[in-house]
């Protein structure tokens, strides 16, 4: 039942993601005005949405972890894992796009003096450790619990580290949003919003796709066993 309804949702999501992505690309290259940065500023519309999506995935993973611990929701462990897995993938993309941008803008692939970057690296390491933890515990209820607790830690770690970085005030990494709202032109902001939406729907599609695959796997294994 549930698999069927999810299967049904998947094509719709995928279509949405595709259209939004196409729209975003069109907007980025033909509509949004160039900054003083020149052409390489276009990467802004990828880099930032990707970074936001990564955060979103981590948060969703944390939420599912909470559901698992709190309500004992069935399958929440798998969902949390898939979300975090996706988050790590988007995290790598953030690092890559950021590095490319940094190469053009600052002349280095990576700058240690930039706490904002190091902070993201810390989060990334944190979620790598999540994988190490998960794979060194045999599958079963204990693994689900440990992973969920650690995922919850992540959700608290993010704001605390952001706070810590803000305190040290050493960053040159730009801030697109401050107290006065977005500091960019309206057309840029619109493009930015569309590419954000595109990235989010893309992530949602991948998330559901992976879940369906994993569930199918499980179902198959059960069937095989029932036949034995």
């Amino acid at each position, binding site marked *: 039942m549930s698999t069927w309804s999810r299967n049904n949702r998947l094509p719709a999501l995928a279509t949405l993601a595709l259209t939004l992505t196409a729209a975003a690309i069109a907007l980025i290259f033909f509509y949004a005005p160039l900054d003083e940065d020149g052409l390489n500023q276009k990467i802004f519309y990828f880099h930032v949405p990707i970074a936001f999506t990564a955060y979103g995935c981590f948060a969703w993973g944390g939420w599912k972890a909470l559901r698992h611990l709190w309500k004992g929701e069935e399958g929440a462990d798998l969902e949390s894992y898939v979300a975090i897995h996706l988050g790590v993938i988007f995290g790598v993309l953030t690092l890559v796009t950021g590095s490319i941008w940094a190469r053009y803008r600052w002349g280095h692939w990576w700058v240690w003096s930039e706490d904002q970057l190091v902070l993201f690296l810390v989060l990334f390491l944190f979620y790598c450790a999540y994988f*190490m933890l998960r794979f060194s515990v*045999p599958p079963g209820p*204990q693994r689900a619990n440990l992973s969920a607790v650690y995922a919850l*830690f992540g959700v*608290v770690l993010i704001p605390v580290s952001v706070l810590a970085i803000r305190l040290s005030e050493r960053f040159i990494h730009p801030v697109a949003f401050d107290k006065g709202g977005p500091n960019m032109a309206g057309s840029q902001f619109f493009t930015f919003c569309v590419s954000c939406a595109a990235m989010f729907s893309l992530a949602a599609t991948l998330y559901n796709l992976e879940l369906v695959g994993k569930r199918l796997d499980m179902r198959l294994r059960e069937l095989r066993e029932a036949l034995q």
Partner: protein
Amino acid sequence: MNYLADVGALARKDLLLELRARDTLPAMLLFVVSALVVFHFVLPAGSSDLAATGLLWVALLFTALLGLSRAFAAEREQGVIDGLVLAPSDRSAIWLGKALSILAFLALAELIALPAFALFFRHIDGTLIGGVALADVGIAAVGTLLAAMAAASRARELLLPLLFLPLAIPIVVGGVGASVADDPARYLGLLGLYDALFAIICWASFEYVVTE
């Protein structure tokens, strides 16, 4: 009341064990002292207070990690953790008792390390001590939970630093900030916030770490 009595009994047991077997504290002392000695040798006379303070924090962090890596050794050895988990006390008492005993070990190690630091490097003041104390609380709280996790996993001690270091970054930032910045209050606040937040999560989630 009962809860506190449980915590007390568990922490007391850890101290007793350490008194008997002396497994952990000597290693922690050795490490922290030799780390300071190393720094003493490499830091040229006129180097900045900043560098020295940073190194103190590294030494403290790794010392804590060393202590944590053995935190659940006795429980794991003969599956004693099962015995504790079966007892009617709230499971979080196991965490709290262990965290308190870790805190005691840390405090003892620092009782040696801080004067040694003052001797070798620079004068220590109230804020530094306050920062260290707050950091200890956070380290003990988070570290104990992670040590329990690592003990349950197959990779064990190998895993603990990986799980712990990313989570310790805010502590380091806060601690170093508190010891060197002009307005330490903000950093102490950050440390306090960290302690409170993580202590609550650890307290609430420990039960899930030790049961299936």
